[in-house]
């Protein structure tokens, strides 16, 4: 028997990159401390946004232009397994970029998680109007002066920054372009992007400072919590708004735990396959479908039609029907979601009750399957496919046959729908283009022929 299995189940590509978007008046430099602390596990790439840090405002200072700039930078970086982090202003940009990746509209692939540090939400940022006016007044004549910069830092920290951090923060504020500063305060922070962003079913870590003002814990729950369907919240007591500078250790540790505990818990998709999904050969809608499917399963998933016990039993069935190596796709919770959404396959055997009822009866009857040895589990499942047998719970043997056939089909289909499985079996048919002249299809159709754009496959014969 032949198989195509990666030689190293956790190759080096599994190391993630986190692209970091800074706050108003700051720069990529604010993430230097986090980068140093995560160096063993994560590549931290801070990006200056247009008009901040070393970057001129020429690339455009509106939210829309900053989003486009970030998409270009991530694309040219080439990361294929990455998170995006946004601090304050950068949070709004991060959420918008994430939404474009998950819809497939951005030519990117591999987003695994979002980190928001006192992040500005997609809706207009809550901001005291007097404070807004004051911050604008600082730039009536030109850029920020030293006094304004000091006042800004004081107002945004829970406790004094170390001297070197303070000096760097002041430098960043003073070199912020007036254009970029005012664009955010007058326009960007006020824009409502909630409709474009919608709700995002991506792992997200939402960190706030307990002593922060408008972007503190309550508004994070209320505003960013409404955007993300599976948020993890972390409040750093006593911290103000400048979290990467004030609480570098804790923020770094939270990111590490978030990656290893949630965002990174998905099968690895080989780099060349991920780049293919990001390329123009993949229709945006299809890219979005694959992007959402590639996200890590939610470790805190609340079953919708099955019980927690049923999920454990179904996971045991899944592990025998479709054995997976490495971090498995949680086929059981994905099937629970499909059952809850009423997504059947259009028919069922006359022997069976409704789809949900059949699962409930079958999984009740198989309760405890996970406690048996593998071979015994296989015996139990094989008995479901046998012509003669006692049935399953209140279901006849014919119904047991039919249910086991249904669950096998559902499991293998769910497994194959994941882009990591498509890569495993060498299926690149999702990369056949969009429509009309951009429906690229295939030019080489004969046995053994491959086109130049196709990812490499290990010869397994």
């Amino acid at each position, binding site marked *: 028997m032949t198989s195509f299995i990666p030689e190293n189940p956790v190759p080096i590509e599994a190391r993630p990159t986190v692209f970091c978007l800074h706050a108003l008046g700051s720069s990529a430099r604010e993430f230097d401390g986090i980068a140093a602390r995560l160096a063993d596990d994560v590549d931290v790439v801070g990006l200056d946004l247009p008009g901040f840090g070393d970057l001129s405002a020429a690339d455009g200072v509106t939210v829309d232009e900053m989003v486009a700039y970030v998409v270009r930078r991530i694309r040219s970086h080439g990361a294929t397994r990455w998170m995006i982090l946004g601090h304050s202003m950068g949070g709004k940009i991060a959420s918008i970029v994430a939404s474009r990746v998950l819809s497939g509209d951005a030519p990117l692939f591999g987003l695994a998680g979002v980190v928001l540090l006192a992040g500005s939400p997609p809706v207009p940022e809550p901001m005291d109007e007097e404070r807004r006016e004051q911050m604008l007044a600082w730039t009536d004549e030109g850029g920020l002066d030293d006094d304004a910069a000091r006042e800004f830092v004081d107002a945004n920290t829970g406790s004094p920054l170390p001297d070197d951090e303070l000096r760097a923060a002041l430098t960043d504020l003073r070199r912020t372009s007036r254009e970029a500063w005012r664009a955010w305060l007058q326009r960007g922070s006020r824009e409502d992007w909630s409709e474009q962003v919608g709700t995002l079913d991506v792992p997200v870590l939402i960190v706030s400072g307990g002593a922060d003002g408008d972007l503190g814990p309550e508004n994070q729950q209320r505003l960013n919590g409404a955007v993300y369907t599976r948020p993890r919240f972390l409040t750093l007591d006593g911290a103000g708004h400048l979290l990467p500078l004030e609480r570098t250790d804790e923020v770094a540790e939270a990111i590490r735990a978030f990656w290893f505990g949630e965002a990174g818990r998905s099968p690895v998709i080989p780099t060349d396959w991920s780049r293919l999904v990001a390329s123009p050969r993949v229709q945006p809608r299809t890219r979005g479908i694959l992007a959402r499917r590639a996200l890590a399963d939610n470790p805190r998933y609340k079953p919708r039609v099955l019980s927690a016990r049923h999920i454990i039993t179904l996971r045991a069935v899944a592990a025998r029907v479709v054995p997976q190596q490495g971090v498995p796709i949680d086929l059981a919770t994905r099937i629970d979601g499909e059952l809850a959404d009423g997504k059947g*396959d*259009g*028919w069922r055997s*006359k022997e069976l009750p409704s789809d949900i009822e059949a699962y409930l009866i079958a999984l009740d009857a198989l309760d405890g399957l996970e406690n048996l040895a593998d071979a015994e589990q296989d015996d139990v499942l094989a008995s479901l496919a046998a012509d003669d047998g006692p049935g399953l719970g209140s279901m006849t043997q014919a119904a047991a046959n039919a249910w086991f056939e249904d669950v096998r089909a559902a499991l293998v289909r769910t497994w194959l*729908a994941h882009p990591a499985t498509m890569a495993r079996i060498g299926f690149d048919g999702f990369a*056949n283009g969009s429509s*009309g002249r951009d429906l690229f299809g295939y030019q080489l159709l004969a*046995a053994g022929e491959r086109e130049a754009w196709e990812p490499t496959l290990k010869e397994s014969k």
Partner: protein
Amino acid sequence: MNLTGMRHYSDDEVVDVVVVGTGAGGAPLTATLAARGLSVVALEAGPNFDPVDYTGDETEAVEINWMSERISGGADPTAFGQNNSGRGVGGSMLHWGAFAPRPGEADIRLKRDSGLGEDWDVDYEELKGYLGQVEHFIGVSGPSDYPWDPGRSYRYPAPRRNASSDMMIRGCQAVGITATDAPAALVTHDHHQEEFGLRHACANCGNCHQGCRNSSKAGTDNTYLPLAVKAGAEIRAESMVHGIELDARGRVSAVVYRKDGVDRRQRCAQLVLSAGGVETPRLLLHTGIANSSGQVGRNFMVHGATQVWGRFDTDMRGHRGYPSSIISEDMMRPNDADFAGGYLIQSLGVMPLTYATTLTRGAGLWGQALVDAMDDYRYMAGVGINGECLPADRNRLELSDELDEFGIPKAVISFTAGPNEKALDKHATERMSAIVEAAGGKDLQVLARTAHTVGTARMGADRERNVVDPDGRSHDVPNLWISDNSTFASSLIANPAITIMAMSLRTADRMLAA
């Protein structure tokens, strides 16, 4: 499809004709009647799609299939969902495979020749004329020399061969079976379609069953329906018909349909049901009309569609290219047959989820064997059949006690293969295995499946045994017609779409003549 500028009719207006369904059965007739000046409203249960939005992703592409649950019984329950009916403006032709063989005269004279099954009350030469019209208008591509019908010609060259095509040709040559490029209802050159616009040449993308994104594949949405709209017909999407009203004389006066959650009533002078082999009889049984014969839902037939796959030493990657580009008609009536009828053989391309579903449902694979089989996906190539099915009393469509989301009882469809189907399947499995082995395939995998749904409202002169007369008109209700695969008296060996369209044109002419 683009419905800009379409004429609209009010529910209260007594339109000349209401057509239920916009697929192969409904659309050609809608276009023909509208072109002759009749006011026609075609009601479609599904939405109106823009082909550029289709996704090749198999899981999401089910949006173009009829996914409302059907219940399947008998010893050989047939799979529905993705395997059969479509839903949306264009019907099943949104997802069909475009495999477009023609039925031969023997196909509709099975009983005359074998004493088994049923003959069609249809003149073959007349049918053939309509078939030619359909093929020319929708743009069928095929070989310049068709071995089993000398003189037949197609508008464009056949689709390109892929790895399974080369394999089938090689295997057939080795075992002495004639095989050639298959007729396919797609355009292999850029093609300007009347009232539609540009249909791009097939790009060999392999996504026929997920919806054609460049309109290369013929559907009704890029052929007959644009003609119909131009001629003044209305296509009313997301309108699920669940009632038929009769007047005091027993004639249809209106249909009741639900749109946007509201029940509405479209009045009409004539009604045509073109909802397909399952939905047409379900609606008739639900409304209780046109069934004095008791034959509605009877004689349900499916095509045997067994596949034989082999593993090859090189990458075959059968998701590339038009999926079924080679045909053999040599087994139309095999010399050594111990059964009536015969079968077509075709080369197979397949998408991974569909293949895995057939592996686990059709061959019972699970566990490491299933994973290993999918790891071999790229080395696999196969051939499949479309085989005769005889009408049988045990195979029928009935209503269940369960209601669907519209309050219509769900369909229960029972199918059990009989001795003829089993003998045919055995013969075909042996022949296919020989072909795949001769081509170099190893570790053969035989996957059982069935396809298509025909015969549930049979056409024929005898009103005791048939639902509609040879014109397609109900024996009971004079202004009710049926135009779809439910009227087929025998299953045919040819895949049904081209014949459904040809019969639709014929029914339109009969309606105009009536």
